[in-house]
């Protein structure tokens, strides 16, 4: 196994132990960060193809609500059923939306994705009898592999589920980035005309990246729902999508570990900012972002990447 893989395995091992050792509030926060990190990976996948989506909240919310409806309507509790269900709904939605948006680039792509997520937001707000309107719906505690627990133990189960899903997603996106499919997405960003003259259908490459991104955003949404125990239309609001782009830039756009590290830094920053300045936490986040842009323009993960490159050289 390569050194990168060993480091990743070691990180998963440390985080697995951390679940037992760390205080409960921090475990909850880390679970939230993992879920967000997976959704941020969806932004990373699209950025690879030169696309910035301001509408990943669409899939994030759709998958979260799908899990919520399945729990409330069908009485499903098993997370290993709810997670694939949410991802499937997100991918299906991506398959439909992607037919249109995969033809667009730049600001047009960004605005179209934003528009779709806001359409869902409107539907979730207005369809009160089904969705609970702006209040959203409460989600019962899930079981994992048939194990049902309550309170902190239930949260710990969701933590391990989120950790496994995050590790799996990181592996998947890394593999994608190293495969021809990922390189072709990169090539589309560099030079679409050339890609077509290599015999590869450009829109299909973008469509494939969009489907993968939809699934990842959906996975992040289900995990968030299972962790928080509540879904509301805010998951589809533009600020949620913007937050995912914000975290991708914070972590270091294009980097898988950067996206995950960025999500952890973001959640911790947000928590503390909210704790010490509940009415000005966005301002504090903005200030933190400015500091990072000034001193770490490559994102919070960039010093680690530089160190890694030196080791490889």
């Amino acid at each position, binding site marked *: 196994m390569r050194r990168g893989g060993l480091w990743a395995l070691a990180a998963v091992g440390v985080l697995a132990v951390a679940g037992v050792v760390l205080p409960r509030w921090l475990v909850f926060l880390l679970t939230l960060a993992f879920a967000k990190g997976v959704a941020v990976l969806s932004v990373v996948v699209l950025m690879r193809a030169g696309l910035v989506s301001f509408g990943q909240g669409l899939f994030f919310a759709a998958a979260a609500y799908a899990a919520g409806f399945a729990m409330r309507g069908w009485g499903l509790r098993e997370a290993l059923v709810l997670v694939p269900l949410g991802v499937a709904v997100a991918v299906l939605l991506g398959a439909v939306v992607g037919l249109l948006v995969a033809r667009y680039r730049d600001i047009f792509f960004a605005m179209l994705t934003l528009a779709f997520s806001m359409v869902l937001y409107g539907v979730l707000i207005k369809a009160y009898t089904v969705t609970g309107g702006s209040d959203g719906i409460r989600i019962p505690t899930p079981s994992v592999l048939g194990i049902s627990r309550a309170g902190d133990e239930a949260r710990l189960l969701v933590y391990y589920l989120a950790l496994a899903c995050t590790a799996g997603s990181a592996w998947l996106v890394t593999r994608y980035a190293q495969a021809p499919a*990922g390189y072709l997405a990169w*090539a589309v960003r*560099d030079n679409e005309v050339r890609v*077509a*003259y290599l015999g590869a*259908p450009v829109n299909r490459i973008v469509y494939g990246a969009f489907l993968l991104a939809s699934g990842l955003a959906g996975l992040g949404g289900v995990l968030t729902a299972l962790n928080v125990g509540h879904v509301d239309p805010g998951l589809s609001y533009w600020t949620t999508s913007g937050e995912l782009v914000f975290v991708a830039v914070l972590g270091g756009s294009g980097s898988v570990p950067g996206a995950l590290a960025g999500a952890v830094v973001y959640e911790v920053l947000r928590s503390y900012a909210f704790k010490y300045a509940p009415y000005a936490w966005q301002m504090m986040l903005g200030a933190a972002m400015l500091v990072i842009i000034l001193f770490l323009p490559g994102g919070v993960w960039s010093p680690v990447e530089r160190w890694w490159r030196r080791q490889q050289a």
Partner: protein
Amino acid sequence: MKTPILEVEDLTLHFGSITAAERETVIVYPGEFVGVVGPNGAGKTTFLNLITGYLRPERGVIRFWGQDVVGMKPHQITALGVGRSFQIPQLFLTLTVRENVLVGLATREGRWASAWRPLHEPTRVQAADEVLLQFGLLAQADRPAGELPEGGRKLLDVAMAFALRPRLLLMDEPTSGVSAREKFQIMDTLLQALREAGVTALFVEHDMEVVRRYATRVLVLSNGRILADGAPGEVLDDPEVRLAVTGRR
């Protein structure tokens, strides 16, 4: 009698009042190296754009190995075996020279077989390095394509098309923007690689010496029309052709 690799019949296209192609009819046979010459605005690049599906003709037929390709998209025509290089090299500037070729090789292999295997698979890297060796670019393999000099970019542009193992290669001014000495080096390299692989080529060129030395046949375009079509010595020494192409008899 040989089967034509490319048949163009009655090809017509206008951009408003400008005639880009007017009833162009050409047949290319396997093994030919056809030089396409003409003054600026004669419709040389348009001719390549029509054959490769970038533009759609108003009228006319384009057949590759007997198959009508009018209406097909560039990636579909490329997949049939028509490669293309560009006047301004179209590279993936942030990828390395080797990766530029690897991406081409991966698309040639098909979608599902190779979609999830790493791009840098040893067998694929070996194939890419063989192509780079043929084009004299192996020493630059790990450099970003954006760092190559113009001559290197021109060669890589053709190497990427060549990696697809095309049956017909269309090259748009493969020697433009490089020094006079480099021109012949580039053409020697290109032609040797193409001959070894049995690739038929059609190349647009402004330099008459290059055309005279490397083309087996010359096609002269002027105002979207075919002015002459024949052996290089015969066509290029024609005063009418010289006047149309260079402005001097």
